[in-house]
């Protein structure tokens, strides 16, 4: 539990050294294969540094140089991909990592591509919609759709980046299951979906302030005001 308490506090000085080493270690692996992929990996590494725990730190340094041996994202080619790249060009990038294929798509193309994937390429089952927060990045959020096609027995991911405060078109009209999944993304990250029939919190209470899966939301943080008013106790801790 001692580790938890530290998390919301500002990063201790030794972590500062860790960040550059982590960043240096990654680009050789990623950058070699796909130049554009190099933009992304430093971002996940950087925000992690402040939250990294001390017990992990000694082991982290010697292990870092060994990492480039790991697999790297490779370009993904298939007739389907060619169709999309010829249609959308630079707004779309297809890659594969550990045998899993994904599209990185410009935010403006999202509604078109999702609809085409369902209508033309039979991705009839939307497995999941989720997001990842990278606070140090200009466009802070990755929003992901995990799709599956029953006829093709194939799974792909579509991901896009959006800025904090920006909204994204809802896909409820494409897959009805998106309703609750988008509500959960809104609840946890504060990302709004345009055209959602009923965008409100789903797991947290309606009056709650804050979005807990953002990286700046500490693990012990909570809406004290809500707890005091609604539960009649001083603190939920």
């Amino acid at each position, binding site marked *: 539990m001692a580790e938890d308490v530290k998390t919301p506090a500002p990063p201790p000085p030794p972590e500062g050294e860790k960040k550059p080493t982590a960043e240096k270690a990654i680009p050789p692996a990623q950058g070699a294969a796909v130049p554009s992929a190099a933009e992304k990996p430093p971002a996940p590494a950087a925000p992690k540094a402040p939250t990294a*725990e001390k017990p992990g730190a000694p082991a982290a340094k010697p292990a870092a140089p060994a990492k480039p041996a790991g*697999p790297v994202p490779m370009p993904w080619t298939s007739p389907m991909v060619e169709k999309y790249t010829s249609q959308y060009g630079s707004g779309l990038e297809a890659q594969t990592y550990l045998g899993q294929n994904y599209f990185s798509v410009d935010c403006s193309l999202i509604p078109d591509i999702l609809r085409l994937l369902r209508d033309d390429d039979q991705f009839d089952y939307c497995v999941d919609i989720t997001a990842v927060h990278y606070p140090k990045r200009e466009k802070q959020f990755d929003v992901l759709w995990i799709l599956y096609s029953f006829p093709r027995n194939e799974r792909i991911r579509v991901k896009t980046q959006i800025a904090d405060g920006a909204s994204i078109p809802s896909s409820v009209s494409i897959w009805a299951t998106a*309703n609750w999944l988008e509500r959960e993304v809104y609840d946890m990250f504060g990302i709004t979906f345009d055209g959602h029939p009923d965008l409100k919190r*789903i797991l947290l209470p309606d009056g709650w302030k804050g979005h807990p899966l953002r990286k700046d939301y500490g693990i012990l943080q909570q809406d004290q005001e809500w707890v005091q008013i609604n539960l009649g106790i001083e603190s939920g801790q």
Partner: protein
Amino acid sequence: MTENDVSSRGLSGLDQSRLDRSRLDQSRFDQSNLDLETPEKPYLDSNELIINMGPQHPATHGVLRVILKLDGEKVLGTECVIGYLHRGVEKIAENRTYAMFNPYVDRMDYVAAVSNGLGYCEAVEKLLNVEAPARAKYIRVILTELNRIASHQLWLGTHALDIGAMTPLFYTFRDREEILKIFERYCGARLTTHAFRIGGCQYETYAGFEKEVKNFLTFFAPKIDEYEALLTTNRIWLERTKNVGVISAADAIALGVTGPVLRASGVKWDLRKAQPYAAYADFDFEIPIGENGDTYDRYLVRMVEMRQSMRIIEQAVNGIPEGPIMGKVPKVIKPPVGEIYHSIEAPKGELGYFIVSDGSTQPYRIRVRPPSFVNLQALDIMVRGLLVADVVAVIGTLDIVLGEVDR
């Protein structure tokens, strides 16, 4: 419908502001692509009634609150209010190492903890690019399938109890005990087992494990017949489950419903066959499907699934290879930078883990794709036009675990 209507119907004691916030707006249910239709004519009274079912209700299997919009006893629409068990599992994951998070996954779907652990361990193994040894895979399959039986037993007992048949509860809990004893002897825990580790299994099977599993199979085969004798042709059971909570295959797919609920609607899809994981490719088994997508078909599908699980266990326990049980996993688990999605066929449907690694010892993000959460969304279209008593049957047939819905 106005506030006055509500108070005139004896609900004035309710906090008006809360009632107002949770009031059902008909437009909310306009999901035109689902071909939902509301009953044209009220048949008892022209006034609609809104009542709360739960969160403290014995038939909601935990703390699920369903707001029912009724016309007399006919359900016009529902809204689920969930989150009472929200513990922030995904946030906890970001503050734990990969190994430390492993026991937490057991606490989501706590009646199928072994499946949760299998999905998580395999997802991290994929990210690390290591594979569990063959012996570990077989042990995993045996325990996971035992757990599937245990989960279906608990579902059957509670579901039948909700509908009014009390005996199956005692039968299933009596027999489930035998599975829990095997778990207890294997890893010391009965419910939240933490049976597997990243890279394989922590424990070698105990002396007599195989014999005990085989004994269970011979013990259990007649027990399923016993359950079926109680229910399958029981007049009351048929009346309460046939054509109740029907969901078409198209609606089920659009709503992302998976597991036995999807299969009962006639979609022959099971991740153990479609994208085999662990050692499932080695075994011979059938995927049962239903025709009508009603509560009775879902009952039949799960009954057959228990028998198929026994087939898998039998093959696995007879063919269990010798060898190590732990793969080559570093002491400090630090997966390379990357993302992975891995899913398994849990007793309730597709259970997926999406893991983002930033190269450190802690996951940058773990997203759990919970089958119960997604399946619960189908409750609304399944109960429209039914009676209140059927809502209880449909909640039971969806086989949700609130620990997983809320995470």
